[in-house]
C-alpha cells in the first residue's frame, strides 16, 4: 500500500489563534501560495515562504481579537479578498493589504463565525445569525442553541439565493432560507465545524462535511427538501474533537483527500476507496491543539503540504518533501544544517538579550514590591477550555490549553467524582487527602513537564451528585499566577440530548403541577440536565428527549406553564429529578403537586439493560487476573 510520508517544517509563530483564522491565498500561476493569519492580538498578516523563512507582505497593527478569516471574491473569479471578523466588525483587505471594506454590523454578540459569498456576507454570534447583501441586512434568525459554525452552499449563479447551514450545539444542522428554517437534521455529536466536500460541495454542490466535538466526521448531502447522510466515521481511537476539515489532493492521485485536524493536536489524512468511503492514510500526533488546517503548496514548489495553525500560534507545514536525504549525499544535508545552525545561533543571541532584559525587569519588579501604595497587577493569560460529555464512554473530558506553559493544575470538586487515567498527558498526578467537611471530595494536582501547554483529564461523574468542579491553572511564567475555571456538574450529568426515543419501553411517570411560569420551570430544568439551552424556547409547550450515556436509559420531558411531565424507565432518574426539582421549588416558595406513577416492569427492564455491562466488567476483571 502506498504510504504517505509527511515531514514537519516550522514556519513561524504568531499570537494565539482562534479556529479558522488561517487561510492560504489562491495562487495564480504555479507560484507558491501565501499564508494569511489573524491572531488574538488583532494582527492580520500575509506572508510568503522564501527559503524556509517567512517574508511578510503586510501586517496590520494590533487591535481586537480576530475570530475568523475568510477568502472571497466576485462570483466565478479568484477568491483573493481577505475578510476578517473581530468583535462586531468585518474588515476586508486586498491581497496587498489595503483595507477596502469596513462594516460595523449591528450584532449584539461578538461574531463567532462568518462566511462570505459574492456580495453576501453571513455572520453568526453565539445564538444570532445575520446575513447581509451589499451591506444591507437581508435575513435574521435566532437559534435555540449555540451556533458553532456556519456554511454557505455554492451558488449556481451570481444572483441566486444563498443557502446557509448552521452547525448547532444541540447536534443539529439547520438549513435556512432567508430567516426561516427549511429543515433540521440530527448528526452524531455536537457539530463544531463544517466544510464543503471536495471544496465545491461535490457533484451537485450540496455535499458537506461536518466534524463533531466528540471526534466524529460525517458527509451529508443537503438537498432542497431533505438531507441524505452518506457516511460517518466514529471516533474509535478516542481522539480529540474536530477543529477543522479541508479537502486537498495531498497524495497526488487526482482525487481530493480529506484533511482533518483535532483539538488534541492530531492531524489525519483520509483517502477515499473505490466506494468513496474514507480510509485513513496518515496520522500526525502533535501536542498542541490545532485551530485550522489547509492543503496547498507553500514551502517549496512541486511539493504539496498541509499548513497548520495551532492554538499557541505556531504555523507549520506537513510537507511531502523529504528531508531524509541519503547518507552519502552529505553536502546537501550539511547546507541545510548550516542554515538552521545560523538560525539557531541568531535565536540564541536573541534569547540571551531577552534574558538580560528580563533580569533587569525582575529587579525593577522587586523594587516595586516595597511600595505599599502601588498595586501588583498580573496580566492574565488566555486559556482555551472545554468540559464535555462523551457519548461513547459516558465520561466528561476536561481539556485545558493555555497560551503559556502550564506549571500545574489543581482540580477541586465538592462532590465525589472519579478521575479516569488518560495516556495522552505526561503529568505527574497526585491525589491529596481531603476533608469532606471542608467541601472537598477531590483535590488532585497535575504537575506538568516543561513546555506543556495542554492537558486532557477524563472524569466520570455520578448522577444525583451535583456540584461544582474547579480547575486552578497555574502558569509557569514568572511572576506566577493562576486562573480559576469553574464547571457545573448537573444532577443528571450523564444525560445527553437526543431527538429520537424508543416509545415501547415501560415507563415511570412524574407529573409536577403548581403555580410556576414557563421560564421558571425552564431554569430549573436547565439546572438539572445538561444540554438544555439557556434561553427559553419560543413554544408554549416544550418537549426534550435525553439519553443516559452510561446506562442507555432514556428520559422524556414535557413542560409548559404550571405543568411538567417526566417519563423514564429508570426510576433513579425520576427520583433525582423529583428531589432536585422539589428543592428548587421550595427555594422559590412554589408549592408543587407531585404525582408519581411507577411500573415495576420498568425496574426489571432497567436491570436487564445494566446486566450485560456488569457481566462484561466481571469477565474483563477475571481476564486481568
Amino acid at each position, binding site marked *: 500500500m502506498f504510504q504517505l510520508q509527511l515531514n514537519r517544517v516550522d514556519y513561524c509563530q504568531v499570537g494565539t489563534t482562534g479556529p479558522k483564522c488561517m487561510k492560504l491565498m489562491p495562487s495564480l500561476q504555479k507560484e507558491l501560495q501565501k499564508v494569511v493569519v489573524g491572531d488574538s492580538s488583532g494582527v492580520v498578516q500575509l506572508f510568503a515562504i522564501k527559503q524556509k523563512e517567512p517574508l511578510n507582505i503586510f501586517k496590520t497593527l494590533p487591535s481586537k481579537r480576530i475570530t475568523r478569516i475568510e477568502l472571497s471574491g466576485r462570483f466565478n473569479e479568484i477568491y483573493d479578498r481577505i475578510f476578517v471578523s473581530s468583535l462586531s466588525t468585518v474588515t476586508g483587505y486586498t491581497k496587498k493589504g489595503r483595507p477596502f471594506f469596513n462594516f460595523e454590523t449591528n450584532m449584539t454578540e461578538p461574531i463567532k463565525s462568518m462566511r462570505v459569498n459574492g456580495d453576501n456576507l453571513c455572520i453568526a454570534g453565539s445564538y444570532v445569525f445575520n446575513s447581509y447583501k451589499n451591506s444591507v441586512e437581508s435575513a435574521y434568525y435566532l437559534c435555540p442553541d449555540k451556533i458553532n459554525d456556519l456554511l454557505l452552499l455554492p451558488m449556481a449563479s451570481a444572483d441566486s439565493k444563498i443557502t446557509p447551514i448552521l452547525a448547532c450545539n444541540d447536534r443539529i444542522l439547520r438549513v435556512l432560507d432567508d430567516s426561516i428554517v427549511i429543515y433540521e437534521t440530527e448528526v452524531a455529536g455536537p457539530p463544531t465545524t463544517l466544510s464543503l466536500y471536495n471544496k465545491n460541495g461535490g457533484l451537485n454542490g450540496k455535499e458537506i462535511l461536518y466534524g463533531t466535538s466528540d471526534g466524529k466526521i460525517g458527509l451529508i448531502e443537503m438537498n432542497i427538501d431533505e438531507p441524505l447522510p452518506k457516511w460517518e466515521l466514529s471516533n474509535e481511537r478516542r481522539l480529540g474533537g474536530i477543529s477543522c476539515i479541508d479537502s486537498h489532493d495531498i497524495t497526488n492521485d487526482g482525487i481530493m483527500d480529506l484533511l482533518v485536524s483535532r483539538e488534541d493536536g492530531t492531524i489525519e489524512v483520509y483517502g477515499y476507496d473505490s466506494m468513496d468511503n474514507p480510509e485513513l492514510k496518515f496520522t500526525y500526533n502533535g501536542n498542541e491543539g490545532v485551530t485550522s488546517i489547509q492543503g496547498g503548496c507553500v514551502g517549496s514548489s512541486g511539493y504539496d503540504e498541509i499548513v497548520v495553525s495551532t492554538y499557541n500560534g505556531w504555523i507549520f507545514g506537513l510537507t511531502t518533501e523529504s528531508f531524509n536525504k541519503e547518507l552519502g549525499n552529505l553536502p546537501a544535508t550539511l547546507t541545510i544544517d548550516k542554515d538552521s545552525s545560523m538560525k539557531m545561533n541568531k535565536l540564541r543571541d536573541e534569547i540571551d538579550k531577552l534574558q538580560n532584559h528580563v533580569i533587569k525587569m525582575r529587579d525593577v519588579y522587586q523594587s516595586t514590591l516595597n511600595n505599599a501604595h502601588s498595586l501588583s497587577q*498580573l496580566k492574565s493569560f488566555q486559556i482555551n477550555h472545554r468540559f464535555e460529555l462523551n457519548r461513547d464512554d459516558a465520561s466528561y473530558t476536561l481539556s485545558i490549553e493555555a497560551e503559556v506553559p502550564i506549571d500545574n493544575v489543581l482540580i477541586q470538586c465538592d462532590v465525589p467524582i472519579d478521575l479516569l487515567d488518560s495516556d495522552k498527558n505526561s503529568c505527574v498526578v*497526585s491525589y491529596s487527602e481531603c476533608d469532606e467537611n471542608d467541601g472537598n471530595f477531590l483535590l488532585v494536582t497535575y504537575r506538568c513537564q516543561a513546555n506543556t501547554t495542554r492537558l486532557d483529564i477524563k472524569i466520570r461523574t455520578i448522577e444525583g451528585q451535583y456540584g461544582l468542579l474547579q480547575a486552578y491553572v497555574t502558569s509557569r511564567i514568572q511572576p506566577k499566577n493562576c486562573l480559576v475555571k469553574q464547571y457545573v456538574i448537573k444532577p443528571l450529568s450523564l444525560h445527553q440530548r437526543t431527538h429520537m426515543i424508543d416509545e415501547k419501553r415501560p415507563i415511570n411517570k412524574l407529573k409536577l403541577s403548581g403555580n410556576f411560569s414557563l421560564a421558571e420551570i425552564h431554569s430549573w430544568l436547565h439546572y438539572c440536565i445538561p444540554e438544555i439551552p439557556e434561553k427559553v424556547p419560543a413554544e408554549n409547550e416544550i418537549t426534550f428527549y435525553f439519553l443516559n450515556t452510561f446506562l442507555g436509559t432514556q428520559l422524556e420531558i414535557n413542560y409548559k406553564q404550571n405543568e411538567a411531565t417526566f417519563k423514564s424507565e429508570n426510576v433513579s432518574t425520576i427520583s433525582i429529578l423529583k428531589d432536585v426539582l422539589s428543592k428548587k421549588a421550595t427555594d422559590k416558595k412554589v408549592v408543587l403537586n407531585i404525582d408519581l406513577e411507577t411500573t415495576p416492569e420498568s425496574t426489571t427492564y432497567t436491570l436487564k439493560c445494566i446486566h450485560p455491562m456488569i457481566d462484561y466488567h466481571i469477565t474483563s476483571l477475571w481476564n486481568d487476573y
Partner: protein
Amino acid sequence: MVVPIFSLKLNNKICSRTVSIGKYDGVHPCLTAATLAGKVFIHNPHQKYTFSGVGRTDSEPLIDSSLSLLNVNSQVTSIATGSLDASNPNEYLFIGTKTHILAYDVNNNTDVFYKELPDGANAIKCGYFGGIKDPVAIVGGNCSIMALNNIGDEVLWTVTGDNVCSLELLDFNNDSYNELLVGSEDFDIRVFKDDEIINEMSETEAILALTKLTSNQFGFALANGSVGVYEKNIRTWRIKSRNTAMAIHSFDINADGVPELINGWSSGKIDARNIVNGEVVFKCNMDHSIAGITNADYKMDGIDQLICCSTEGEVRGYKPMPSDVINMTSDRNINQEAMRDLAQRKQNLMLELSNLEEASKPSVQRKFDDFGDQTTGIPSNTQIQSKLSTRLQNGSSRGHVELTVVTNNDTVIRAVIIFAEGIFKGESFVVHPPANRISNDLVVPLFLPKDSPIDIHMQIFVGYENSTQFHVIEQSRVLPTFCMYRRVDISKVEEPKGFVTFMTSERIQRIVIWMNYNFILDEEYEAESSINIGFIALRDNKYLVIKMELNGQMTIKTDDIELAGTFIQSLCEYLKITDLQSNCDFPNELENLQTVLAEIEQFNNVRQQLTSQMADHSSIIRSLVVRAEDSRLMDDFEGMKKHYFELMNTNRDLISGYKIRSNNHKELLNHVKLLNQVIQKAGNLRMGRYKTDLISNARQAIKSNNSASLIKIIKTGSP
C-alpha cells in the same frame, strides 16, 4: 532519532532488571537475562555453547541456535556477571533466587559454588570492594549484605536499614578503594566502606537502581518514577516522570568523553541525559517496557554499543555518535525540535517580560483587561509569612506539625499546594477551604512518618474573595529533623525506661544550638551548665528526655531505639564526631528481641522437622508408584486402585506440608529481617569503628547462637 545498528528478537520474555553482559570466555560478550519462566538465557552470537548432559541444566530445543537456556526452576531475582579471580579473564555468571545464589562457570559448564541464603539475593554486584584483594560477589538480601569470594566463603557481612534493592561499587571518597552503594526500600542510599557506613543519602522512594557514571558520580532510579544524579553525597539533579524507570545505565552515547545517564522507562522510552544538568541528549522508543540496558562490543568491531532490551525480548544496539553527527545524518526533526524549543524559550521570556512590565507598572486598579476577563491587582508589598508549630493529639485529630501561612494585608489565601516527597500519599498536599471560610491565614496540618529533614515547596494562591485569578507566591522551607516532638515541662514527664548514654567533649552551647535548629521550639532554648529537657512525640505521645551534665555525659531517654539512633547520627554529623561509643538499655526492645530469637529457633526446628517429613513422604510416594505400576502389570486393578488412592493421599499431605513450610519460611524471613534491623538500629547508636565492631560482633553472636552475648553487645557495644 538515531537508528539502531542492530535489532534482534529473542522470542523470550525478559524479567525486568535482570539483564547483564558476560564475557564467559574472556573475549566474547554474551547477553544474559532471566526469563519469566524461571530460566536464564545466554545469547552468544559469536560461538555456541552446548549444555548437554549437565546436572541442573537441561538442554532444550532452541529457537535460535545462538541462544542457550539454563533451567533454574525457581524465580530468578537477580543476575550478575563478573570475574572472581584477578588472574582469570573468564567471567562467571551469578544467578540469585529468593533462597540461593549460584555462581556458574559458563565456559567450563561447571558450578563455582551454590550457596543457600536465608535472606535471599535481591541484588548482586561483582567487583573489587574496599581492601579485599580479589574481586568479590556482593549479595544484597533482606536487610543484609554479604560479600562472597571465589569459593563461596563469606568474607564480609553487614546489615542495612531495609531490604536491599540495588548495589553499586565506586570510589566514593577518592581513596582509590571502591566503596559499596546500597539502595534499599527505606528510601536510603548508604555508602559502605568495608562494613562501615560512611555516608547516607535520603531519597523519597525505594531505590530501584544505582549506576556508576564517573569516579564519584552515580545515577539512581526510584520506584516513583524519579531518576537523578549524585556527585558524592550531593544531588546534582533529579527529574520525575509518570512512568517508572526500569533500568538505568551509564554510556557515552554522544561520544563527547563524558558518559550520559541512559534511562529505560516502563513506557518503552529510552532517553540519555546529560549528567551535569539532566538535559535530554538522545531519545528513542521501543514497543514494550524496557527490561534492561547494558553496553558491550557486541559486534566485535572495537566500539561498544548501547544495548537495550524490552520485556518482550527485543534487543537493540545503538552506536555512540557525536551529537552534531546525530543531527546531521539523521532526521531534520531533531533540529526542528531544537529550534522549536528555542522559539518556545524566547516566547516564554517575552511573556515573562510583558508580565513583569505589567506587574511593575504603577497602576490604578482596573476591573477588566483587554479580553474582558477580570484582573486582580494585589498590593505590591503583599508578603506571606509562614510559621511552624506543633500540635498534640486532640480527640480524633492525630498529633501533627502545623504550618500557618498568613498574608500581611487584606488579601486572602484561596488555597495552598505543598509539594514534598515522602510525606504524603502522592507528591502533593492541598488545603482548599470552603468559599465561606477563606481568610488571610490558612493552617496546613503535616503528618511526618519519619524523622528526617524534609524540603517542602509551597504554592500559595493569593487574591481576593471571588477572584478568578490569583497570584501564586512560592516559598520553600525545610522541616527540621525532629519536628514531630513537642517540648513539655520536664517536671510532668514520665521518664522512659530505655536510654542511651555517651560522653562528649563538646560545649553545651553547641548542643543547644543544634537542638534549636532541629526541633520546633516556641521559644529558643537556652542552657548554661546542664541540659534537662523533655519532649513528647506527636505520633504516639511517648516521652523523650535529653540530659547533659557539665562533664559532657549525655543521656537520651526514650523507649524507641530507632529515635535514639537517628538522634545520635544527626548530632554526630553536626558536631563532626567520627567515633562514638555508647551504652544503652532498651528493656522493651530487648525483650522483643529475645522473643524474636526464640521464635527464629522455633521456626528453624519446625523447618528441620518438616524437611524430614517431606523426605519420608517422598520415599513413600516412590514406593507407592512402583507398587501401583506393578499391580497394573499384574492386572491387579484392585491393588492398583488402592495404591493410587494412597498415593493421592500422601500427595495431598505433601502439598499441605509444603504450604506449612512456605508459611513457616515467610515468618522466618520476617523475623530474620527484624533481627537484622535491631542490629542496625543498635549500630546507629554508635559511630565509626564502634559501629562496625558492634555489627561484626553481633554477627558472630548470631552465628554461634549466643543470645545473651548478643544482648550484651547491643547494650555495651562489645561482647
